[in-house]
């Protein structure tokens, strides 16, 4: 019985380790892409703005939650800070604060694409630890 339990645990840990890191990054991309799809499917600029604002705010808060977890390393925190700062700039530009011009109503679709593409740029040499990646996955699942 004990052996079976250990084998099952090893299997689950292996499966999570196998998929965890990639899922953490992919889920951030997918989450932002879903936001862009919703924005483009909406007619009203006010609603588009609301969708973008809620999505960016939710992701920024989610990263705060991940950073406050005791399991994340300093290295992970520095990387998450970078992602968070990038998202915060997008949020500021949407609202037209902190030195940004407000994104015009007729450019909101393009802005949603810009957010997706900017987060998917090929500058991805950073990696985050498995624990951090799994936390991001869990929080995104809760957000959606």
């Amino acid at each position: 019985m004990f052996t079976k339990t250990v084998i099952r645990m090893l299997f689950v840990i292996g499966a999570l380790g196998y998929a965890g890191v990639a899922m953490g990054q992919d889920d951030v991309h997918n989450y932002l892409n879903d936001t862009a799809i919703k924005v483009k499917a909406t007619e009203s600029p006010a609603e588009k703005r609301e969708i973008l604002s809620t999505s960016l705010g939710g992701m920024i808060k989610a990263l705060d939650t991940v950073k406050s977890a005791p399991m994340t390393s300093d290295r992970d925190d520095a990387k998450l800070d970078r992602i968070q700062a990038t998202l915060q700039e997008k949020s500021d530009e949407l609202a037209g604060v902190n030195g940004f011009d407000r994104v015009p109503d007729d450019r909101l679709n393009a802005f949603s694409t810009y957010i997706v593409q900017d987060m998917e740029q090929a500058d991805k040499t950073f990696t985050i630890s498995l624990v951090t990646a799994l936390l991001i996955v869990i929080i995104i699942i809760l957000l959606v």
Partner: protein
Amino acid sequence: MTRFLQRLIAGARQAHSTELGSKGCVALAVLLASCGTVPPARQEGQIAASPPRYSLVFIIHGDGDYLYHDALGNARRADEDVLSRAQAIAERNPNAEVFIFHQIERRHVLFLIPRRDGRAYYYRHGHLREQKAYWRDQGDSRFDPEVRLYEQFAGTQPLPPVRLFFYFGHELPELNGAGYDASYSERRVSIHDLAEGVRAIAGESAKIDLLALATCFGGTPYTVGALAPHARYIVASPDNLHLSYFDLEPLAGLDFGSSDGDITAFANRFARNAFEQLARDVETVVSVVVYDVDAVSGFVDSVADAYARTVTAADGTIPAPIERCDCADEVTYTSPGMNDGLTVFYRAPRFGRMKNEPRHSGWECWRATK
């Protein structure tokens, strides 16, 4: 098509057809045959017997996060897209030999038994001649497995007069590249590993005619300097490069010579096409630059010490107290000859702090964080 032509010709030869009809059918058959894209058997045989005029090597890194979304929101894998485009190019070049290496994530059978994590394809005269899976952790240097397979496929035949090399992947770190390969988190990879691989493929004292580095931030004095001894022209992006990468369409049906003028013209055409394609498809910054290696060497050498000092000072510090900048914006790097040997294609991002930036020097550097 062949059956159709046979039926047409047979129909034209029928004795009870009208003379006008049979002449028309034969003429149509000849016309259709002359428009065919497949070369006649004799011509194909001649091409296969002659040595290839072009050598194309593609290294496509796929061992990491390469998910992106197209303008319609469809999820795509950048490395798989490039692989299929490179294979299509290989099939459309009867005068070339094409080596494609796809570096993929290491997977395991039942999470225990590792599977090969590289795929190699060798095309010659438009046909796939060899295909094999390989291990990527064999050898001292990061690109040793690809170099060995290149040598095995190429054999002892004379080198084609025009040689092109393409690397697709995330930015290759200039220092401390731990974590570049998702499957080998402890292994360090840097631009020097690629330079070593290019050197081995180019051969002693030989140079690749055009090296395209489809990564973010490839257009730095350090990266160009590392690759310079092994290439005549480099096409790279000094800023972020979207994962739809450089378009490969200009490589279809290659037909140019190996003179400086020919290579320059092709490099410019390749870069301009990549730029225009990206500028149509993305909202982020688009920058594609052609570096004439001989002409830029003065600038690269002049800033090498200052650049290395800045990067080395920040190595290992978290967060690193440095940020990227256009070299022209930092007095340490500016010099009168910094624009020599560059052809710059640049469009600012549509949004963000840099959206009103009208130009880029073509060189990206590091500076201390303000």
